[in-house]
């Protein structure tokens, strides 16, 4: 027996091969089914990369978290995702692990620890940090492994995530499956880096390069890596060298590769090599392996046959899983009336909006140890650039209030991942304008996680963001109102308070809400507007607008700092004998169409006012709904006023005229009432 020469226990090698055989059977069955036209879905073959997850499966359990990509079917199989649920998902069926709503590139199966699967290159890495934060804070012994390709090392999200994980010593493994190709482009074309693992060292943590096609050495290397990470020594970056034998998508060979090179790579491919090793070392007989492979093939065939019988997920499922409550999904003709907040606690204190925000966070953090804050400069003594977290780091410590690197994707991803694990993070992004650098984490991941996973997972996170504008002098990149971007991304709840009382109550609702919520805080209001704010905890329910001034001739609908312009305009209009009702939306999503329509039914006229660009803005949406619903009751068409179609100018003269102010509102209201 040559067994003594093996660098791995025979039983382990056999178990690894058992997983390889399952992966191989899945790959073969998919390719055969696609080739025969038995089913159709987009497949990104992982042929040649089987050894990596098969080996790791012997070192982790379902309690460890995993994130992978569209190409990660091998990762899913080895992690223990039920094959029936996986195939049903790939086929878009009701019995899919995610109700057929995510498909194979978006599998999310907490029961096996396969938490998130993304089709956005590199985007899993920031989310992995969040899962790792939850494990670390809860004192769990889990590691989080995030798989991605070599191509993903070029994208900012991976760099941001690596840097954050290093800074916070998170128990996360960045597993780069280096298969030599990024889609149709090979390595030397897209980077001059001699390797990828070296980047970890540059960021101050451990990086290793392992042969991902050799089970014995990979097992040994990964064992050390996992022990290191589990032992609390911080992250590790693993560059697992392998080869993608298939095309980027579809079936068959990697046709971009030189034929001779492919032939050599095929000879080195791990499945056949490992099989031969088991025989040569006398660990398994041919019969044993054949029956193991037959069992794998049968498991796969049964799963596919059953999956093909599951019902295609019907269109009646369209709006479920967008939010926890389907009533929150806006749709024509459905305008639920949600109960308002009722009486608030009676004891009050004069607070600015910044103090009200701080108070809401303070109460939430005292009440729930899983509420934590992360963002740039959020620590003391500053407590955030706008001081909305002052004193919280001192009171709750460095893990509950986490100043971050200047890396918005890493911030949102960390919040998202921890929320998927059930924590209640509050991520602060300084200016709404900075959504541009992290919008992928917001609209592709936080917004869609519930939907793509068929509610197997969801993201109860809060993002607080400050909006400049209206004050003058902040220029084109610090003054924008980006709410329409957010509102056009199904799955995000958005609130925009106009006063300190609402700010505290809305933020409390956001923190406790099961869906991702974004609170936009007007910089202008944070310090200037004071109010009598109840000192105890209270919530302002999401999706409940408020009539803040009653009137009979026209309804002004607004939110945020512009609401105060609308109120000033109403005051002016009153002097001229026009009675304006002012509705503060408070929540932009869910929207309270019920109260909006009730008001306009009474006045017969409506103007929506916002600081955001008018063209394709939220006002157009609301005005259109009012016109459709109340056509026969309107005295004039509902309309909207927003900013001119131009970046915000630095010149005060331009800014104050391009964004509506009370004078614009008065003028428009007079036109509307006259008409």
């Amino acid at each position, binding site marked *: 027996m040559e067994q003594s020469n093996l660098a791995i226990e025979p039983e382990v090698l056999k178990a690894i091969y058992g997983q390889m055989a399952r992966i191989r059977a899945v790959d073969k069955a998919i*390719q*055969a*089914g*696609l*080739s*025969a*036209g*038995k089913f*159709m879905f*987009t497949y990104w073959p992982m042929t040649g990369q089987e050894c990596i997850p098969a080996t790791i499966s012997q070192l982790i359990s379902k309690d460890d978290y995993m994130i992978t990509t569209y190409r990660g079917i091998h990762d899913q199989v080895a992690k223990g995702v039920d094959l029936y649920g996986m195939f049903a998902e790939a086929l878009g069926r009701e019995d899919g692990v995610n109700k057929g709503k995510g498909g194979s590139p978006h599998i999310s199966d907490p029961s096996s620890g396969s938490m998130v699967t993304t089709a956005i290159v590199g985007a899993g890495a920031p989310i992995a940090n969040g899962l790792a934060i939850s494990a670390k804070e809860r004192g769990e012994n889990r590691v989080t492994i995030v798989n991605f390709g070599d191509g993903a090392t070029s994208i900012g999200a991976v760099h941001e995530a690596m840097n954050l994980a290093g800074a916070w010593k998170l128990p996360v493994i960045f597993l780069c499956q280096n298969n030599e190709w990024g889609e149709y482009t090979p390595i030397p074309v897209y980077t001059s880096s001699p390797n990828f693992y070296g980047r970890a060292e540059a960021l101050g943590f451990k990086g290793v390069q392992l042969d991902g096609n050799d089970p014995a050495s990979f097992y040994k290397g990964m064992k050390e890596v996992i022990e290191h990470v589990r032992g609390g020594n911080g992250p590790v970056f693993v560059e697992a060298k392998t080869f993608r034998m298939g*095309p980027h*998508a*579809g*079936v*068959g*060979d990697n*046709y971009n590769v030189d034929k001779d090179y492919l032939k050599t790579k095929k000879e080195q491919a791990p499945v056949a090599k490992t099989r031969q090793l088991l025989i040569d070392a006398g660990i398994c007989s041919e019969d044993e392996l054949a029956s193991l492979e037959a069992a794998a093939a049968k498991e796969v065939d049964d799963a596919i046959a059953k999956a093909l019988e599951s019902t295609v997920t019907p269109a009646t499922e369209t709006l479920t899983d967008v939010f926890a409550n389907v009533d929150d999904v806006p749709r024509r003709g459905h305008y639920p009336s949600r109960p308002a907040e009722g009486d608030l606690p009676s004891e009050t204190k004069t607070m600015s909006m910044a103090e009200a925000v701080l108070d809401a966070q303070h109460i939430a953090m005292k009440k729930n140890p899983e509420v934590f804050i992360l963002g740039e400069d959020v620590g003391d003594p500053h407590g955030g650039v706008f001081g909305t977290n002052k004193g919280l780091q001192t009171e709750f410590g460095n893990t509950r209030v986490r100043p971050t690197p200047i890396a918005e994707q890493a911030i949102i991803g960390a919040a998202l991942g921890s929320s998927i694990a059930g924590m209640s993070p509050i991520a602060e992004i300084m200016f709404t304008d900075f959504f541009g650098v992290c919008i992928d984490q917001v609209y592709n991941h936080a917004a869609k996680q519930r939907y793509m996973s068929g509610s197997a997972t969801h993201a109860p996170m809060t993002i607080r963001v400050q909006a400049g504008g209206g004050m003058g002098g902040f220029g084109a990149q610090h003054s924008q109102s980006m709410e329409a971007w957010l509102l056009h991304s199904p799955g995000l709840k958005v609130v925009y308070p106009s006063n300190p009382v609402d700010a505290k109550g809305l933020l409390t609702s956001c923190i406790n809400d099961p869906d991702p919520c974004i609170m936009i805080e007007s910089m202008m209001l944070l310090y200037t507007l004071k109010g009598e704010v109840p000192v105890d905890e209270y919530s302002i329910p999401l999706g409940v607008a408020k009539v803040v001034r009653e009137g009979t001739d026209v309804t002004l609908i607004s939110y945020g700092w512009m609401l105060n312009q609308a109120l000033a305009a109403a005051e002016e209009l009153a002097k001229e004998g026009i009675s304006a009702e002012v509705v503060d939306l408070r929540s932009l999503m869910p929207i309270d169409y019920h109260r909006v329509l009730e008001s306009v039914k009474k006045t017969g006229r409506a103007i929506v006012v916002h600081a955001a660009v008018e063209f394709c803005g939220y006002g157009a949406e609301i005005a259109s709904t009012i016109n459709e619903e109340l056509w026969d009751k309107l005295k004039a068409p509902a309309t909207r006023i927003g900013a001119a179609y131009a970046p915000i100018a630095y010149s005060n003269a331009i800014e104050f005229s391009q964004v509506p102010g009370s004078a614009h509102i008065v003028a428009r209201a007079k036109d509307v009432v006259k008409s």
Partner: protein
Amino acid sequence: MSTMLTMPKLEMSMQEGTLAEWVVADGAEVKEGDVIYLLETDKTSREIEAPASGKLVQKAEAGEVYECGTEIGEIV
């Protein structure tokens, strides 16, 4: 149980493909995994393997373009 062979959709962008050549004669026995025909798309030419073992029944002429989903043969 027979297995229908249709023009596969191998990539998101694929709408049609050319059945370039039958490698196995009509009526011949094939084993699962044997190459049975050559498929050409705008990107590449590929060998398509038999998804099952049995007798190949050709139902479409080689050298022609077929839309994805068109039945081109059967393994009985």
